[in-house]
């Protein structure tokens, strides 16, 4: 019965989204205040409630272990712990698609309630959001229904893949989807603005908070995923340039570009067309990501199983969204207006440079990710493009972008002039920590790229600290201070990520050794002693747990588990963390060594300063959140008025200008 209600609710949500699209469109034609506009908003509400209830019913089916539903049967098991019964609801394709659709609907309702101030624009955006939701709900209802029955119902479920039985499954996908799907709101507002012929500035103001919120969530989702991949053996570490990682990284890069270019458009009217274009393409790349992850066309450790039909559907949705977006853009880009001019050393110019580098990086990543697919379609000899490509192409571009980043907050709008800014930030003084870090990295024999990234990381940190220190005094209002903290924290976060990434790229090689209890090995100057290996069974698995003592003090306990339901072995990494970095240990099966002793295969690695990556990501997300708060509480900042004259040597910086150029 539950399955039938679930199917009905999904169908209802689909129809509600369709109604939302049509009614809100009509409402926008009537100026956004008519009954049709209100009906469109009500339809959005129905879609949210229906999809939310369907999602709840799916979770209930998991809790009841209702194996007559194919999706539950293939992703659950009676013995599975409660948390994985709940999070298992989005542990596979159909369930995660339902989550995706629900979030799409939620953003539709969000737009209807707290969308753009201009009601006609708001209603039009609700309509576009309805269109995007309709596409995905159709996919859900007709090609990925999580409530599909199975006959005969199996007595026992196949269990959720043991590797996915991790607490992070509960929050990583929802966070990531809020990010991916949140970009749809920016798309909807951009498309709506093109239809309404709103000016570039108004449009940038309307879409920026949505882009900011989505981007911060996407950052958090990617960071949680990177953390998970770091401690899950066989997923290649925290960042591996895997196609699925790239699929989330491309919208992230464009989102980062978008939230910066929207500042320039909002404050100075610069790059209006580019800002709108970014808002459109960021979401299109989100759908491309869904295609790469869910169609099985690429080799990835994170991909879903092969299903060509699904791929065709997603390609169709990708096509509709892209054609609609770009067609509108081509037709109406002229209505966005032109910004005032600016000099090469102005803040606009640096935001432009940052955008150029981020977008080009996204392009380079796109080429590396899609080229193997292209080669396969052409029937040429199959190839793969791995980390060496991305390390040599995307990484230098990102290092360059991070090197320019600390300067921008010290540059005046429009007329530019780098000298006063460089003097103010005491650039010469800031080069000292950079030199220190560079020397340290060279001392430890780091690769060239890591030395560069480490130096840039130190430069970004010093620059962010100076930005906060200098501009705190000029930022008088609470809003300006919020915005300044957001910017400084996010930029410091980038610095920490660069430093942590550089340190991790310089780590010593992993060591594999067969150790018998009582024996020791050494990595990075630390002595690891295998004390014992004991049985430590869990609710739905059997496990061997090793106790390994580090330097005779702390202990680390890696495990090797066997999940009978899935007939699968997993290794749980043991981490020993301190301020210098992580000792990373895993234990393999017991085998008889050449000398006849039973020994365990121990794999040891040392990841220096890896906590900086986590701290950096946390700061970026926090910074994004603060910038969003500043925006929500402070309203739309006034246009920065600068008299653009080549004669004026000193640009009159408005009081708000210094502090509210947000993260």
């Amino acid at each position, binding site marked *: 019965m539950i399955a039938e209600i679930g199917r009905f609710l999904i169908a209802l949500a689909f129809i509600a989204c369709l109604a939302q699209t049509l009614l809100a469109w009509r409402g926008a034609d009537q100026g956004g205040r008519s009954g049709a506009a209100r009906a469109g908003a009500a339809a959005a509400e129905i879609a949210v409630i229906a999809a939310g209830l369907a999602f709840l019913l799916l979770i209930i089916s998991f809790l009841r272990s209702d194996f007559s539903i194919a999706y539950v049967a293939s992703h659950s098991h009676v013995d599975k712990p409660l948390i994985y019964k709940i999070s298992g609801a989005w542990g596979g394709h159909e369930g995660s698609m339902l989550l995706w659709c629900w979030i799409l609907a939620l953003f539709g309702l969000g737009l209807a309630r707290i969308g753009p101030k201009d009601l006609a624009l708001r209603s039009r955006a609700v309509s576009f959001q309805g269109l995007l939701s309709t596409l995905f709900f159709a996919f859900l209802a007709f090609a990925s229904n999580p409530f599909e029955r199975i006959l005969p119902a199996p007595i026992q479920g*196949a269990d959720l893949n043991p590797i996915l039985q991790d607490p992070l499954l509960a929050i990583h996908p929802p966070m990531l989807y809020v990010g991916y799907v949140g970009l749809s709101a920016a798309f909807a507002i951009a498309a709506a603005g093109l239809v309404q012929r709103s000016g570039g500035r108004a449009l940038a103001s309307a879409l920026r908070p949505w882009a900011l919120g989505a981007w911060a969530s996407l950052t958090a989702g990617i960071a949680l995923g990177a953390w998970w991949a770091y401690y899950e053996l066989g997923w290649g570490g925290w960042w591996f340039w895997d196609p699925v990682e790239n699929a989330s990284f491309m919208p992230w890069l464009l989102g980062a570009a978008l939230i910066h270019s929207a500042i320039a458009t909002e404050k100075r009217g610069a790059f209006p067309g580019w800002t709108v274009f970014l808002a459109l393409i960021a979401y299109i790349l989100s759908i491309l990501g869904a295609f790469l992850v869910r169609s099985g066309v690429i*080799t990835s450790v*994170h991909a879903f199983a092969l299903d060509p039909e699904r791929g065709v559907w997603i390609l169709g949705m990708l096509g509709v969204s892209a054609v609609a977006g770009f067609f509108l853009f081509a037709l109406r880009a002229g209505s966005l207006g032109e910004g005032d001019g600016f000099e090469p050393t102005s803040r606009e110019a640096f935001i432009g440079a940052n955008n150029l580098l981020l977008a080009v990086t996204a392009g380079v990543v796109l080429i590396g990710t899609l080229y193997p697919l292209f080669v396969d379609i052409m029937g040429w000899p199959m*190839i793969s493009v*791995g980390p060496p*490509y991305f390390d040599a192409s995307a990484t230098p571009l990102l290092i360059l972008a991070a090197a320019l980043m600390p300067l921008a907050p010290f540059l005046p709008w429009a007329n530019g002039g780098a000298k006063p800014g460089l003097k103010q930030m005491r650039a010469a003084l800031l080069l000292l920590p950079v030199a220190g870090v560079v020397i340290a990295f060279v001392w430890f024999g780091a690769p060239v790229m890591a030395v560069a990234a480490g130096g840039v990381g130190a430069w970004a940190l010093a620059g962010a600290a100076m930005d906060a220190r200098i501009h705190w005094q000029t930022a008088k209002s609470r809003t300006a201070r919020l915005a300044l903290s957001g910017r400084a924290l996010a930029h410091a976060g980038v610095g920490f990520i660069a430093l942590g990434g550089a340190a991790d790229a310089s780590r010593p090689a992993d060591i594999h*050794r067969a150790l018998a209890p009582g024996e020791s090995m050494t990595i990075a100057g630390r002595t690891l002693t295998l004390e014992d290996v004991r049985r430590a069974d869990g609710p739905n698995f059997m496990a061997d747990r090793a106790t390994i003592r580090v330097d005779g003090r702390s202990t680390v306990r890696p495990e090797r588990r066997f999940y009978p339901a899935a007939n699968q072995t997993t290794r749980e990494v043991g981490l020993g963390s301190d301020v210098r970095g992580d000792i990373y240990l895993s234990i393999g099966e017991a085998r008889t060594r050449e000398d006849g002793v039973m020994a365990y295969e121990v794999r040891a690695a040392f990841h220096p300063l890896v906590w900086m990556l986590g701290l950096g990501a946390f700061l970026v997300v926090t910074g994004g959140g603060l910038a969003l708060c500043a925006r929500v509480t402070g309203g739309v900042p006034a246009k920065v008025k600068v008299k653009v004259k080549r004669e004026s040597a000193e640009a009159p910086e408005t009081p708000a200008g210094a502090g509210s150029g947000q993260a």
Partner: protein
Amino acid sequence: MRQARKRLWIIAAGAAVLVAAAALAFTAMRDAMVFFYSPAMVAENPPLPGQRVRVGGLVVTGSVERPSAGGAHFTVTDGRADIRIEFAGSLPDLFREGQGIVAEGAFDEQARFTAQTVLAKHDETYMPPEVARALRESGYWNDGPPSAGQYVGPASGASR
């Protein structure tokens, strides 16, 4: 005049970055591209010793040896030819006999393949596309993966 000047330097800067990035991407791609060889392709036209390649196929049942020194040796097949793979690391948890895997590494002068990495998916019903294509070309496999047909049809796997 101002507008024109502004446009000009924006376009110049953009073009310069694009050209540099394209050059970067092109050279990186040339150096980093790794070709896939099925066992049959290796038998016909083996890659140069030391050249970094990917090989893949189904792990032959009973072929996995775990030497006491650590690591593992195993054979993959596409039904027409076999490759013996030596791997010093610890095999991924999802490594199984009969399963499709991809290994990246190089052949030495004696035509032994030493793998640096062995890729197995976090989904046991998933077949690497290269392996699927190689098996289809060798006529070893034309319907779904070996496990298809049981009710675990749709995906198991998450967003990561």
